[in-house]
């Protein structure tokens, strides 16, 4: 049976129907009905998402969308139910599909009351996330974008850990909603100018500079988009919500709270609709990214609360990606996109591990811990693997992304890129410092007072399954990155600038006028990598596209 034309709708519908069904099943005290139901639904969704890379035509024209579904929804304004997948969203969709069952598993023991509410909202969150990745109609996208706030807010308010939960929920919502509301103005303006919400159409208009002759308005419009996305990421000075949200959110939600949605949106919409504006603002974002890396890592270094540490670490990772994608080099964009996958996985695994600690000892305060390694050899193993993936140890997934990002920064033609590449690279040091220090304080040395009082257990079978899945992915993604890169690169090459050459001794790049596919030029050689990614090596006249 050929699913190709309905698969995306199926992917969206499965969790939605699941949420409705779960909402209708009565809740019984102590029963795991909803857990199991949610697990089944999320697993089905995962399987459906796996269909995408399986049948994806990697050799298709770059920039084209596959599995498209394009139905009219509202005639005036012209809003369509337009879904599609390209190299950028392909793996992100799978990622969203993968994280959901993991989230359910992570909530298995922690969520004992009000399970119906929890899982219903959790699945709605899943719908929103998938919808964001799949929508090709700006309006539809915006719908999912805003919708994604609601379940998270409610869940934080309901399941938040401390008395602060209500405030944290509202803070999260406000931080995300206000910029999004401004973005809606940008969206409306775009619609009024162009008469369409269709992303491919808008992209084409943008490419031919025919959205609007009013450059100032275009600028402001692009800013309205960017700011909304940047807050969601979050980009360095806009991260005020992150700590509280992460601290309060249950594990399953902390896993999805930050990062991918905003980053994807920047890649898709900021870059797609405002290519020039994005390039103009790139120096700022590169600087913020580099600063964010250092900032997040340094603050993670001095935290005593594990969740806060995790949230600043998240900030650092997200900043890495911001740095990468705004270089507009193939390496940077590819690496950044790859890093979104990695960052989400690492973050998720990290939150799961922290959740396990909390389950056992009831505290996130590092000072209460110590010397757990002997008691939980498997847990410490997983912690170390996750930490290593996070700090970019080669052969694990984190390295590929970080390396490409930083090398892309060095190749970028943006001003001061060398400085920011250096600053960003220091993140390598600091991230190692905070991760290892954290592990040392929690697991090494003498037994801390909290483990002294409570006797926790090592991983059980469910946790093993869950964590080994992550560990396996870290390794596989670290070793076989081209599997992922095949798809991502089709997006990256379209988005990135022309190859550049480094002007010796001046540390400046000069955009090359023409492109010569010879190895002797000291710049990007497109024959490299192309074959490895299963692509036709671009012919000389086509090469100018990037």
């Amino acid at each position, binding site marked *: 049976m050929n699913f190709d034309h309905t698969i995306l709708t199926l992917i969206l519908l499965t969790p939605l129907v699941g949420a409705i069904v779960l909402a209708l099943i009565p809740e019984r005290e102590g029963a795991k009905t909803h857990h199991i139901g949610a697990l089944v639904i999320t697993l089905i969704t995962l399987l459906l998402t796996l269909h995408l890379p399986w049948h994806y035509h990697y050799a298709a024209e770059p920039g084209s969308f596959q599995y498209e579904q394009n139905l009219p929804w509202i005639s005036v304004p012209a809003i369509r139910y337009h879904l599609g997948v390209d190299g950028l969203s392909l793996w992100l969709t799978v990622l969203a599909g993968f994280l959901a069952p993991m989230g359910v598993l992570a909530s298995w023991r922690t969520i004992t009351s009000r399970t119906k509410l929890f899982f219903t909202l959790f699945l709605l969150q899943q719908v929103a996330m998938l919808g964001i990745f799949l929508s090709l109609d700006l309006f539809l996208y915006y719908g999912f974008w805003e919708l994604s706030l609601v379940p998270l807010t409610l869940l934080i308010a309901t399941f938040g850990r401390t008395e602060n939960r209500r405030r944290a929920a509202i803070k999260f919502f406000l931080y995300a909603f206000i910029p999004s509301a401004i973005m809606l103005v940008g969206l409306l303006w775009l619609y009024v100018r162009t008469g369409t919400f269709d992303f491919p159409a808008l992209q084409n208009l943008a490419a031919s500079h025919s959205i609007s002759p009013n450059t100032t308005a275009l600028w402001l419009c692009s800013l309205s988009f960017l700011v909304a996305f940047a807050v969601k990421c979050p980009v360095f000075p806009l991260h005020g919500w992150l700590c509280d949200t992460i601290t309060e959110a249950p594990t399953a939600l902390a896993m999805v709270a930050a990062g991918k949605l905003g980053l994807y949106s920047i890649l898709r919409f900021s870059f797609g609709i405002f290519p020039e504006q994005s390039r103009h603002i790139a120096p700022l974002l590169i600087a913020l990214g580099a600063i964010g890396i250092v900032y997040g890592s340094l603050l993670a270094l001095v935290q005593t609360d594990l969740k806060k540490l995790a949230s600043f670490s998240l900030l650092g990772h997200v900043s890495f990606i911001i740095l990468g994608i705004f270089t507009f080099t193939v390496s940077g964009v590819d690496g950044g996109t790859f890093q979104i996958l990695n960052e989400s996985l690492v973050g998720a695994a990290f939150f799961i591990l922290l959740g396990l600690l909390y389950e056992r000892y009831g505290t996130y305060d590092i000072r209460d811990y110590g010397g757990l390694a002997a008691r939980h050899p498997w847990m410490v193993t997983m912690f170390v693997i996750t930490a290593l993936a996070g700090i970019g140890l080669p052969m694990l997934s984190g390295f590929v992304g970080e390396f490409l990002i930083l090398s892309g920064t060095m190749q970028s033609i943006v001003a001061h890129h060398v400085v920011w590449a250096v600053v960003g690279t220091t993140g390598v040091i600091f991230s190692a410092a905070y991760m290892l220090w954290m592990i040392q304080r929690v697991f090494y040395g003498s037994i801390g007072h909290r483990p002294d009082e409570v006797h926790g257990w090592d991983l059980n079978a469910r946790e093993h399954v869950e964590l080994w899945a992550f560990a396996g992915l870290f390794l596989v993604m670290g070793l076989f990155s081209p599997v992922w890169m095949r798809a991502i690169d089709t997006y990256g090459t379209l988005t990135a600038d022309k190859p550049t050459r480094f002007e*010796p001794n001046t540390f400046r790049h000069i955009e090359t006028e023409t492109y010569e596919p010879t190895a002797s030029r000291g710049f990007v050689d497109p024959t490299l990598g192309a074959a490895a990614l299963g692509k036709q090596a671009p012919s000389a006249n086509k090469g100018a596209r990037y």
Partner: protein
Amino acid sequence: MNTSLLWLIPILPFAGFLLNGTIGRKLPRAAVAAIALLATLTSGAIVADLWIYMKSAGAPLALAVTSRPWIAVTGFQVDFAFTVDHLTVIMLGIITGVGFLIHVYSVGYMAHEEGYWRFFAYLNLFMFFMLVLVLSSSFLLLFVGWEGVGLASYLLIGFYFKRDSAANAGKKAFIVNRIGDFGFLLAMFLLIAHFGSLSFDRVFSQIPMLDSTGHLATSRCASLPCVIGFQPYSGGFLTAICLLLVVGAAGKSAQIPLYIWLPDAMEGPTPVSALIHAATMVTAGIYMVARCHVLFDRSPAALTVVALVGAATAIMAATIGMVQHDIKRVLAYSTVSQLGYMFLACGVGAYSAGIFHLMTHAFFKALLFLAAGSVIHALSGEQDMRVMGGLRKRIPITFWCMTVGVFAIAGCPLLSGFFSKDEILYQAFTSPSPVGKLVWVIGVLTSLLTSFYMFRLWFKTFFGAPRFDEHALAHGSHGQAALAPVHTRSDTTHTMVAEPEHDSGQAAHSHGIHESPWVMTVPLMVLALLAAIGGYVGVPVAFGGHNEFEHFLDPVFTAYSSGQPTPEPSAPAYQAISLTAIAVFAFALGLLTAYVFYCRKQGRATQLARRFKPLYSLLVHKFWVDEIYGALIVSPLLFASRWVLGGFVDTAIVGGTASAASGATKGLSQITRRMQSGNIRSYAGWLALGAAAVIIVVLFGVHPFHH
């Protein structure tokens, strides 16, 4: 030679790691050891086969094997690819050979440790990464090994994770290494930016084609060096790349200013110190510099820096080594010092001399560490030389092996260290490097100091009256017997000052001082043999040898040269002889002084120390480098993070703007609510005012866009 066998070389240890790491806990110790040993031995065998093949006539200069791509984006690609040339073969030999011996040694040494499986798993993991490091055919894969050995080192240093000091040392090693990696990474980014690739071959082959402005000559004149007026490019961005690589090498090879982690790394079990922190991993930096000689040759400035850093490290570590009391620490500083030597050699362009010293050093330093481990083992964990002495008779095998090692490192003629060190000094003296003479002087001085502190160690440990309390030790042994597996057990908070002794709980050893079992002594003896004769592969021409070692490496170091073969420095033979005489003199002087201070007139050293108290204190405290780093970098960084970033930026600016905005909104909200006083008359007041305002707006406020 089936080249696909190359894959097996690193993969076998990796398989060992996976096996031991996952199911090792359930396996009996013998099985664990067998897996680890077998993995190492098999790859060792393949290496041996490879060596024979490479030595044979008609073998290609380099074997290359490529698998699937690892990282690939359009315009940039790194494959899983190995290249074996002569340099690699030597490194492979050292790693698998010494590595295997140390594995064997560890079987005895770690016999009763709780984390036995863990230890061997880590050791195999280390082997894997180290082999990848030397086998790789690109910077990036080299970096994989580079980081990987750092990881293994981290895990092994922190093997006794119950001890804060061990955990700290592991963390410190990793982080300091990361600082080095920071440089390495930046160097790679620059390489990509300039050469579009990280493959050694692609990068190095482009370098000779850089014209004087740093642009690549066009492909049409690929053999441009012949073109008249072609000025080869040097310096410039190549210097930047080289210096960044040096930062990386300094981190891994414990050079100034990043050497601080190595002495602390002695917190790990002794075999780890021998393997990782003496013989193999720490030499990765030297290997890398040698590997990148094409780059360095184009950057005299970078080479000078390398030479100076090496020289400074050599002498500084040597001075510190003179006054240490912990036997392993002396060896650690000695390692740093010797690494400085190798660096120095590379800095003056004598790469093969550096590699030669690397090899001999691997032999004798591994030997020294293992022997020291044997001593410590004998003394049930005692590491302080002040309470040793007179062990010569009690542990004869260890003593004799140690003696070979000490003489070798001190540069006793006819032992391996003599040849390699002599070669370095000779090359330094004759090199065209502007700092050649200077580093030669420093080298000789260092050689003197090396001789002194090694013999100091020798005398203090093995000669004179025993200063230890045998009963106390025996008791201690018993006392520790109860606590022997302590460091891996969870139900106690006991921490130990010294390295917790391993098998001291055994009845067989409860009598106190004892020689080690054969699994430990056999590797010692093998290494002693190697330390003694290892130098003969590189006997210089001046002494009637053929300097086979250098010729073996020649294809590596002359590859990618710009076509004009550098003329062999044809120094007269007498110069070589006299330089050697000076070196020998330095050795003898060191030996004599040590003899005087520590054997003949004991207490003299203490007097001296008292007389030059500030100097002594400076040395004992290792120039206060750790403290200076702590005060200048770590504390300010933490302080700034906590208070400036965390307190000010995050709370006041990031959170503050938000709370200010919300505060302002709430203030406005209060005002709005105040308007709502509940009184009809005031409401009417607002209405009236509003009415007036509306009328004014409508009458006079014509919209600017609509008129």
